[in-house]
């Protein structure tokens, strides 16, 4: 996997059915779209017509939810073949899925379930990722998922597990900044340590989304504005990982497209500011005082 396999697309949003008409008719200004692979793994009809039209004008990325890379079932060759055919037809910038399992014994939970963080599970997942990449004839990205339980048998942290899988599988990472924040709350770890521990060269995409607060836990619902704390983590990530394509996810209570554009612009502003600060910081490392983090200011700037 080379970082060059995943070009910087800028700041995009997820393509959702609620915005099909507007996107086709008005061709709004947005850098790129991420589409859920399974929504377009159909024989024909409107979804594919829509995607044809969208693809004529925008770069797209295929983001799947059913690869079930951590399952102990055999790899679903039919699913992967359909995914490959979809990728061949629409030529996405890349293909991604999640570091999780979604079912067992041929049954599907339609959810992203966590795995035990052990070296043996790392080997299991990495072997399957390599097989998938061989079939697809392209490197893939795996996303860190939001989780609400962790297993007593885990022997490593989530970030160590994610980095080890990416390293052994030689795949990229889709780093979901909101999921890091959600999991940090749910499992009480330091999200900054997480971001600081992920290998820079593996990260090829960011996800940003909102979540809901259930008191004892945070739920990754993609139905709220992005929280100020998540924007702060994004600023940190942007400084650490550099020019990484960023995607705004919103799956429920979906707002007007113009609001998504505004959020994407906010991400761009933070990224630009972070890049400038990082350059300053590097200069200051040549003998000057290090630049101060502006995370608290960001909370007030972007928290609305």
């Amino acid at each position, binding site marked *: 996997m080379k970082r060059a396999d995943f070009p910087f697309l800028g700041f995009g949003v997820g393509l959702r059915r609620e915005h099909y008409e507007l996107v086709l008719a008005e061709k709004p200004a947005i850098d790129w779209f991420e589409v859920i692979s*399974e929504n377009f*793994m*159909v*024989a*024909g*009809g*409107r*979804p*594919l*017509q829509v995607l044809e039209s969208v693809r004529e004008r925008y770069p797209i990325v295929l983001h799947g939810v*059913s690869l079930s890379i951590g*399952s*102990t079932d055999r790899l*679903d060759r039919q*699913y992967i073949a359909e995914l490959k055919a979809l990728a061949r037809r629409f030529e996405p910038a890349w293909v991604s899925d999640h570091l999780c*399992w979604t*079912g*067992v*014994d*041929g*049954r*599907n*939970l*339609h*959810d992203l*379930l966590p*795995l*035990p963080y052990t070296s*043996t*599970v790392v*080997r*299991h997942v990495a072997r399957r990722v390599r097989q998938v990449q061989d079939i697809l004839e392209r490197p893939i990205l795996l996303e860190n998922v939001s989780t*609400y*339980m*962790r*297993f*007593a*048998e*885990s022997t490593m942290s989530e970030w160590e597990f994610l980095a080890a899988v990416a390293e052994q599988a030689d795949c990229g990472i889709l780093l979901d900044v909101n999921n890091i924040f959600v999991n940090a709350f749910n499992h*009480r770890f330091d999200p900054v340590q997480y971001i600081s521990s992920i290998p820079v060269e593996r990260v090829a995409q960011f996800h940003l989304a909102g979540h809901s607060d259930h008191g*004892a*836990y945070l*739920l990754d619902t993609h139905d709220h504005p992005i929280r100020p704390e998540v924007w702060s983590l994004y600023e940190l990530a942007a400084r650490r990982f550099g020019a990484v394509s960023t995607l705004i996810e919103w799956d429920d209570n979906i707002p007007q497209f113009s609001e998504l554009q505004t959020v994407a612009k906010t991400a761009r502003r933070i990224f630009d500011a972070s890049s400038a600060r990082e350059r300053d910081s590097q200069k200051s490392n040549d003998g000057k005082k290090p630049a101060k983090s502006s995370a608290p200011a960001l909370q007030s700037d972007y928290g609305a």
Partner: protein
Amino acid sequence: MEKSLQSLQRLLYKAITAPEPAGTPAHALGRGLAASRLEAIIAGDERLSAAERLAIYANAYFYRLLECLRDDFPATATIAGAERFLELIRDYLAAYPPSHHSVTYAGRFLADFLCNYHGVQQYPFIADVARLEWTLIEAFQARDAVALKAEVLRAIAPERWPELRFKTPPALSVIDCRWRVTELLRAVQEGNEWRPPEATSQNVVVWRQDATVYYREITRRERDAFSLLAQGSSFAVLCERIAGTRADSKAVQEINRMIERWLADGCLMLDDGAAPARAKAAAKRPPDGPTT
């Protein structure tokens, strides 16, 4: 290793999909596991026990599918009512747990399930409604096809017509209902009050044109005509069978009307790829005769 991971995944699958009585508090959910065993597998803490953490996934599993099925089967859900629909989906998922990688297919067996489901006996037409709603979903995502245009058909020399073979687009389906359910479905779709349908059979065609899915009631004769098209019958056989014993102008008019409607609706295709030998054999087959 895979065996131990497989055991864990099987155990979690069973626990997450286990139906629990409504109103059971999350902390009391055993889901087939002793609390001590659950705590040995899932790390709980003072904020959330292992059972409560598991319950987050169990709720997500059920309510995600419930919402998806409610969206896909709005009339079925309206007939059942919110509470009964929740119960029937809980029982349906226990009988037909999802196995396809796309959540769209979660409801593909709902009509079959409802045929014998005791919980909706007061609505004996609900299975027909669910079947019609599922057929709409299938039509929505069926393979694309180029429908025959009237001008293309008219350009074919009349002497060639008897040998022409038609077929229907992949998105077209004909379903036989025991109840007259199309009016009920339309009422729900238009936000009007629905009434229980008549207990008389109804043939319905579902098709897609310009990415929009349509349905309408058809006569028994039109249903038979669609069957003949699906069998690869020639135009001559189609006319012969639809006319039946009626060698009058009304029969000709009826066939003309059907073809005009099919052409206008994009329900007809020319079957250029029919194997000649098989097609000839089908054409020679006597009406209603044995197929062996």
